């Protein structure tokens, strides 16, 4: 187990809370997608969200991002940190967290005429990327990419990136500006073993460097113990929550993924 900055896994939550979900309910077209979901995310902690397809993982992310109506509450309490000022002058903090979002594989065709620089600049600057991009944006993009060891990707076409490279570009984008909470939707799918290793290393670096609270969904149960501080097993409601080894050996886990006790491994 790694050292935790100020994570408290059980019981009451100290000053270290970053995001609190209390009794979250989401209905889409009359169907209950999430029911009474409550958990806390802490700064400097990586939380993995697992669950079968259709368990509501993406819905949960969209609720946290404020893209879906929900009942219950999602509140943000910065761990004593000051409000931060964004590049465009707006002040964030207090009750509304700045969330970095790494979406599940966006659709780029091989032939899409969008370079990494185009994509990054379009998302972070006002300069219209249909014109030649000035050097200062290039420099900024390179610096951001270097954070995720991807400085060499700058002029690559988005459609030509490998799964791991694409995830790194999206991660660099989510870190510009550095958010309070980083949310990653299935970052490990479509990424080879080496890419997965790199990505997890990077997340570990980031949370220590920026004291980020990281929430990611995954189907890769084998690596949970290596990176996650906390695992949430979700299937419409929170079935089990705790340290990785505790959740993956729980009866709820075996039942949800139709495994027989004692077999273990990936489901």
């Amino acid at each position: 187990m790694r050292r935790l900055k100020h994570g408290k896994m059980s019981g009451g939550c100290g000053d270290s809370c970053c995001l609190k979900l209390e009794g979250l309910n989401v209905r889409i077209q009359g169907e209950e997608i999430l029911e009474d979901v409550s958990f806390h995310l802490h700064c400097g902690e990586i939380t993995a969200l697992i669950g079968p397809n259709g368990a509501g993982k993406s819905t949960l992310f969209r609720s946290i991002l404020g893209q879906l109506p929900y009942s219950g509450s999602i509140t943000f309490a910065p761990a004593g940190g000051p409000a931060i000022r964004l590049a465009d002058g707006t002040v964030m903090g207090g009750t509304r967290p700045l969330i970095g979002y790494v979406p599940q594989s966006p659709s780029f065709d091989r032939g899409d005429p969008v370079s990494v620089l185009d994509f990054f600049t379009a998302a972070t600057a006002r300069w219209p990327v249909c014109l030649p991009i000035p050097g200062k944006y290039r420099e900024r993009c390179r610096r951001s990419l270097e954070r995720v060891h991807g400085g060499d990707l700058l002029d690559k076409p988005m459609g030509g990136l490998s799964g791991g490279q694409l995830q790194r570009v999206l991660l660099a984008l989510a870190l510009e500006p550095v958010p309070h909470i980083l949310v990653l939707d299935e970052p490990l799918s479509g990424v080879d073993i080496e890419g997965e290793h790199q990505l997890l290393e990077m997340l570990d670096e980031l949370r220590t460097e920026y004291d980020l609270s990281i929430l990611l969904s995954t189907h890769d149960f084998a690596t949970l113990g290596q990176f996650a501080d906390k695992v949430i097993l979700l299937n419409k409601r929170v079935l089990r929550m705790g340290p990785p080894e505790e959740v993956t050996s729980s009866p709820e886990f075996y039942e949800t993924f139709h495994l027989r006790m004692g077999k273990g491994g990936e489901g």
Partner: protein
Amino acid sequence: MELWYALVDLLPFDWAQPGSMYFMKNALLAVLVISPLFGVLSTMVVHSRMSFFSDALGHSAFTGMAIGAICGFNEPTWAAVIFAVVFALLFNLVRRRSALASDTVIGVFSSTAVALGIFLSTLGGRSFTKFNSLLIGDILSVEPEKVALLAGILLVVLVLWGLSFNQLMLSAVHPALADSRGVKVFWQETVFSVAIAVVVTVSMTWVGLLVINSLLVLPAAAARNVSRTMFQYHLVSLLGAVLAGIAGLMTSYYVGSSAGAAITLYLAVWFLGTFLARKKQ
């Protein structure tokens, strides 16, 4: 216009002689305004996979013309513009609210609009033939005021591009990601589709309903073959549109065919050229 005529008079063509053939000179100026307009819009039509939508808009524009003619407007174009804008807004709303695939929703709208247009224009035993000119289009009939109107629209589109191209592109790539970065995806899509609606409807009279969508698809489709960045994409698309526009108009003058069709054929050649020149990936 005087300045323009004086400039054109310098060209070494027999229609460019001073004091004659003003319709051709107007048409050349109109092509120089319309082609970059379509060259620019084309990039996003292709990038956000809206070519079927712009095709449907052309059909709705015809219906708007029919409505305008029935209401007895002097300028049925304005009725058509309003109808096309309503069409675009409704389409966006339905697409957002419904679980149907976007091409299905377009199919529903397009067929309804066409049926309504034919129904209205043939109402009371009227003949459809007066709408034939809309199908083919006639760039030589363009008047200087209309060229000014088109230039105004070009200016508006360029400003729109400068202000919101980034948001538009992000919305097309990944709506949820765009939203998480503060982009109002729905409004971006709406403004863009309204822009297409206005451009298609206003230029339909001169370009021709049957080929207008090719001007929205071919320039960027050709550009995609050879571009790796957004800037190259726009450059090649614009270049292709303008070159094909000029070449098409000239050709139609000398062989006496429809300019819209000639321009489209040149664009198809441009597409073939870039297709053959593309780098194998």
